[in-house]
């Protein structure tokens, strides 16, 4: 006789047969069998089965339920058995629904990030820390809620089943993606972080510190990256202010030292009036670019105050040299602090360093140049122990006539940028001269120079306000990516069918983005205390605390992304766009189709719809895992652990650098929401900067919008050597396999640098592993 059963959660409780019989009765009634005698017969049948269980055995709940089904069938109630089975399945699903979330919480709580792909989904979050774990609980619960309450059924289905990916889905109801910050505007007159007012900075050190605070504060209002559109122009006034102050103080010191006993020696305070007067009479300024008129006016004023002419002149000349040197040093220290800060400060629930980016390179003033020179030098030097800085993502803006060719005023900075990037992987390079970027460019209006968000996002066109096709104060609102390879697999080689299903998917995504826009539009200024409250977002300074942000976020973009163009082409036609010009035409036709859809939506809605070459972190593995399960292994399509990034030529395909650049360039013109091209080179890039510059120049000339070079950067933490390390450190000869301390290996993942491979998710690890360094075949004969 059975007296106990085991429940689903493992507990053993006493067995109550009447509960089973009651459930049977309910199922019978629901199926229209209301005769109590029937129920009794089924009960007897169940009892017979139960007798076969060994004495003292403890059946599991699901075994009992199977016995009930069998009893129903035996008694001639197959229809009730079916209803009962359905009821059970439904109950199971409901139970799983409740517990799935708890299981995920369990994984988040108990497993090391190393063993959990879920916890490494975002390489920038350390899933092993308290705050990282808390962030993951929140994100998981929010996704659950958003899917159940905010998506339409067809959207939820498409999202759940991997037809589409809604990026930053945990933030669905809360905020927009990213913003290009205009530092000059923000600093003008000072700003507030919500916990106190910060005066307009007056020194290069404060400029650097406040730039970090601006990024951190804005990061708390948005889930995506934070970028400074014009870093050099934003920080340059700090250099100017520091120089003016140092010039005055140094002049006072020199006068004190040089003036004979008893002669007049105005101190720094007294020189304030002298400087102000000299500015007024000469029209010049105490600036790095020496104004003879100003210096002359100061000397003249000193003479009229009784300072001997030779003393005044000598003091002024020394003060200028000294002030320039001191300002240069202070700028270096400020940039060093900025980089350290951006790699250590936390935001986003305290679990992540902000996703910071800075654009620079075209300011030709001595102050702006001093900023960029020192920023690059400190980046080259690395962090405290020479480590490669992960943040900020630096973007050197290349422009013909400004910094691209010998003789251009900032050509030296471009060369320095190449040298630094060949050692540190940053800066990346953006190209104002690319046809689709130069069309917005207005000389004398730096805000019309393209800015990129580190990982690739780009916002330029503005159908909402044609007069403001600029980058500062704007950003992406939200983006959703389409699993293109799946559409291609399902089309079974039928091109027309592929485009038909693509159109359907585009319509679905457009509706979803509009739905999300509605949610965002109804948020109020107070929901974004810094972004909107401090006027960082374009036109938000015209709104009040309780105003909805609808009108101003129309400056932002709604973007439709895609992944795996290469796999699409293989699935549809058997080859990808790296392999033949015909496939390149097919690839361009597909991406052009998406772009044209976006353009038509923009015309229809007067919102900025753009086409995105999706950065694929997390996503690259998610889609293909699902598709593998669904379709099995299809050679060239689902036979790897990741789908290829956007329009990239597959990383495992051998191709020369120039061919990769030329094949990918036309897609940059189509993907107006953002794009990036990488060239992979093997070897210690820092030993061959000339080769690095050749690649960047080829990108510029081919019409690439944004690009970078991937190359290995390793570091031995023991001796500090930075370069390429195999198993043995070239400098100290230490072998990795002999000791506990591993070499650090910096690699790039969807635009962000990661210090070790540990935080890569599985798909990204596989992708890194497969990367073919273009053109290098070891010693094998290369017949390609």
């Amino acid at each position, binding site marked *: 006789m059975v007296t106990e059963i085991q429940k689903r959660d493992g507990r053993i409780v006493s067995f109550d047969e009447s509960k089973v019989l009651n459930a049977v009765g309910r199922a019978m009634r629901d199926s229209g069998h209301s005769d109590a005698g029937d129920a009794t017969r089924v009960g007897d049948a169940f009892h017979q089965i139960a007798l076969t269980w060994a004495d003292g055995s403890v059946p599991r709940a699901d075994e009992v339920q199977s016995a009930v089904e069998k009893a129903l069938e035996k008694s001639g109630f197959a229809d009730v058995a079916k209803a009962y089975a359905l009821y059970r399945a439904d109950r199971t699903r409901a139970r799983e629904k409740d517990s799935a979330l708890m299981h995920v919480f369990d994984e988040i709580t108990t497993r090391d990030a190393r063993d959990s792909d879920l916890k490494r989904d975002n390489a920038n979050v350390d899933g092993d820390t308290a705050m990282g774990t808390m962030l993951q609980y929140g994100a998981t619960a929010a996704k659950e809620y958003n899917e159940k309450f905010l998506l339409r059924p067809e959207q939820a289905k498409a999202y759940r089943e991997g037809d589409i990916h809604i990026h930053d889905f945990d933030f669905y109801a809360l905020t927009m993606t990213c913003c290009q910050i205009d530092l000059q505007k923000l600093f003008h007159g000072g700003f507030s972080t919500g916990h106190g007012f910060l005066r307009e900075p007056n020194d290069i050190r404060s400029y650097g510190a406040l730039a970090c605070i601006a990024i951190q504060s804005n990061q708390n209002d948005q889930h995506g990256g934070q970028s400074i559109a014009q870093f050099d122009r934003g920080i340059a006034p700090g250099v100017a202010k520091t120089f003016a102050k140092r010039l005055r103080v140094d002049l006072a010191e020199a006068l004190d030292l040089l003036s004979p006993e008893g002669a007049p020696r105005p101190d720094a305070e007294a020189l304030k009036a002298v400087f102000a007067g000299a500015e007024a009479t000469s029209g010049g300024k105490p600036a790095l670019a020496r104004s003879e008129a100003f210096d002359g006016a100061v000397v003249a004023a000193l003479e009229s105050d009784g300072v001997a002419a030779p003393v005044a002149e000598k003091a002024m000349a020394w003060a200028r040299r000294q002030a320039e040197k001191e300002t240069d040093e202070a700028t270096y220290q400020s940039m060093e602090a900025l980089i350290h800060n951006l790699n250590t400060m936390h935001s986003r629930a305290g679990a992540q360093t902000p996703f910071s980016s800075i654009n620079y390179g075209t300011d030709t003033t001595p102050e702006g140049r001093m900023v960029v020179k020192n920023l690059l030098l400190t980046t080259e030097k690395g962090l405290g122990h020479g480590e490669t800085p992960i943040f900020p993502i630096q973007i050197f803006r290349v422009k013909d006539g400004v910094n691209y060719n010998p003789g251009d005023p900032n050509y030296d900075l471009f060369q320095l940028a190449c040298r630094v990037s060949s050692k540190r992987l940053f800066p990346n390079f953006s190209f104002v001269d690319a046809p689709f970027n130069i069309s917005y460019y207005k000389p004398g209006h730096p805000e019309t120079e393209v800015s990129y968000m580190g990982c690739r996002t780009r916002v330029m066109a503005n159908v909402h306000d044609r007069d403001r096709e600029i980058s500062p104060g704007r950003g992406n609102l939200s983006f959703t990516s389409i699993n293109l390879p799946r559409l291609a697999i399902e089309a079974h080689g039928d091109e027309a069918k592929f485009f038909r299903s693509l159109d359907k998917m585009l319509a679905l995504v457009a509706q979803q983005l509009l739905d999300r826009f509605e949610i965002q539009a109804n948020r109020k200024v107070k929901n974004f205390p810094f972004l909107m409250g401090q006027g960082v977002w374009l036109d938000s300074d015209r709104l009040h605390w309780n105003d909805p942000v609808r009108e101003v976020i129309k400056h932002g973009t709604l973007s439709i992304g895609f992944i795996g163009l290469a796999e699409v082409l293989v699935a549809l036609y058997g080859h990808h766009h790296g392999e033949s010009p015909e496939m390149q035409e097919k690839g361009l036709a597909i991406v052009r189709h998406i772009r044209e859809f976006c353009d038509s939506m923009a015309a229809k809605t007067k919102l900025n719809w753009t086409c995105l070459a999706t950065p694929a972190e997390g996503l690259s593995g998610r889609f293909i895992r699902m598709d593998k399960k669904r379709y099995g292994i299809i050679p060239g399509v689902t036979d790897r652990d990741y789908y290829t990034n956007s329009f990239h030529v597959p990383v495992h395909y051998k191709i020369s650098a120039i061919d990769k650049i030329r094949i990918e360039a036309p897609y940059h013109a189509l993907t107006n929401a953002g794009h990036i091209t990488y060239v992979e080179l093997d070897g210690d890039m820092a030993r061959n900067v000339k080769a690095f510059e050749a690649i960047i120049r080829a990108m510029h000339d081919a019409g690439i919008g944004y690009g970078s070079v991937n190359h290995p950067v390793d570091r031995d933490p023991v001796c500090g050597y930075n370069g390429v390390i195999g198993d043995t450190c070239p400098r100290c000869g230490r072998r990795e396999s002999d000791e506990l301390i591993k070499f650090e290996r910096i690699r790039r993942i969807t635009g962000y640098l990661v210090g070790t491979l540990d935080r890569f998710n599985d798909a990204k690890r596989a992708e890194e592993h497969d990367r073919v360094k273009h053109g290098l075949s070891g010693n*094998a004969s290369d017949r390609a």
Partner: protein
Amino acid sequence: MPPTGPSASAPGPDAGKPERVLRLAGFDRDDIVDGPGLRCVVFVQGCPHHCPGCQNPQTWAFEGGEEVTPSELFRRIEDTVLDTGVTFSGGEPFAQADALADLARMLRPRYDVACYTGYLFEALLAKSERDEGTRRLLESIDILVDGPFVEARKDRMLLFRGSANQRILDVPASLAARAAVWTTDPGWVGEDGAARAG
């Protein structure tokens, strides 16, 4: 590839004569580790030195590899578009001096041409008195990295060299001086001229 007759060869310095053929162990493009800038590397098949610790022992045998004419190689090099230098490696390039000299003459002055060798410059200079191929190859290259790989003097911090005994020579200057002259090109020896990585 079949042996190439006159009809298949591009017009070269010896137009009309059948082209010489190179025995190739490998060809790399967009290389950044065998000289400054982006380069093509021509690995020849066959080497008499057999240095202990050699990175490419599969190139020792004088049989095997791929037979290719200089003009075919020239076409492959041109296809890279970006590459501005060519490095001869191997194998021992001076074991196939004639064919490589033909290639180098097609390449210059558009490409800078560098050559690794297990011989010393002084020995090659002496040999060039009696050997036409050696003389022609020396006269057609810009840079010579000379000397065998000596495992005991291996040093990974060296720029573009395997062991510290090897020298990076400015060939036109060395020929003019009739003695080995180090290059001063910062691309080869670094901004500080130390020929070592920092």
